[in-house]
């Protein structure tokens, strides 16, 4: 596609439920990143994919968070047993170069609200 597409745009969920956030990167972009943007913590790195593997998942805040990427394309970020502190905007980005050193293209994010 023309840009990085994320769905849903907004998600409200009840505490304790699981949620899945989807990211469709730009076609041909091998590197994919997830970031979280919250008022208190700013922008935080979550995980990096190169192809289907995740060489850096150091930013995942707890074992309730997981992500996968299939076919070197679509990625899903799953949050299990959501907590109120998970409320944030989750941003996905992709890059044509493995290290993203020319900058990424970001999606418009998913705003997650846990009530």
């Amino acid at each position: 596609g023309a840009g990085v597409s994320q769905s849903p745009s907004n998600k409200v969920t009840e505490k304790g439920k699981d949620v899945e956030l989807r990211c469709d990167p730009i076609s041909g972009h091998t590197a994919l990143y997830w970031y979280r943007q919250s008022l208190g913590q700013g922008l935080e790195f979550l995980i990096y994919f190169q192809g289907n593997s995740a060489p850096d998942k150091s930013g995942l805040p707890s074992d309730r968070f997981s992500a996968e990427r299939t076919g070197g394309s679509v990625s899903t970020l799953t949050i299990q047993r959501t907590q109120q502190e998970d409320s944030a905007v989750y941003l996905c980005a992709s890059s044509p170069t493995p290290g993203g050193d020319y900058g990424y293209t970001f999606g418009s994010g998913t705003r997650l609200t846990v009530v």
Partner: protein
Amino acid sequence: AQTVTQSQPEMSVQEAETVTLSCTYDTSENNYYLFWYKQPPSRQMILVIRQEAYKQQNATENRFSVNFQKAAKSFSLKISDSQLGDTAMYFCAFMKQLGSNTGKLIFGQGTTLQVKP
């Protein structure tokens, strides 16, 4: 660990005037990349400008230019002839050099810029 600091939470400028956003960073790396991203209310982060630390020349992109002071670890963004569409939050970001990193960006806290008519 690398840190990025933006000391101006909010700034405003009159349309057509020039404004400079500040950014300092802390690293022990010698080669790295620095970026400015813009985030309008649509939430999509847009790359404004990129600087390679080993290049002495300051990067420019149309009305946007940087003042990169490697020794001082400073990377300010100058916006000339400000336009209403420049109203957004601006983030400074640091990335370690390819080969020793996974492309992870370390962001500052952001500066909200309002351009007034």
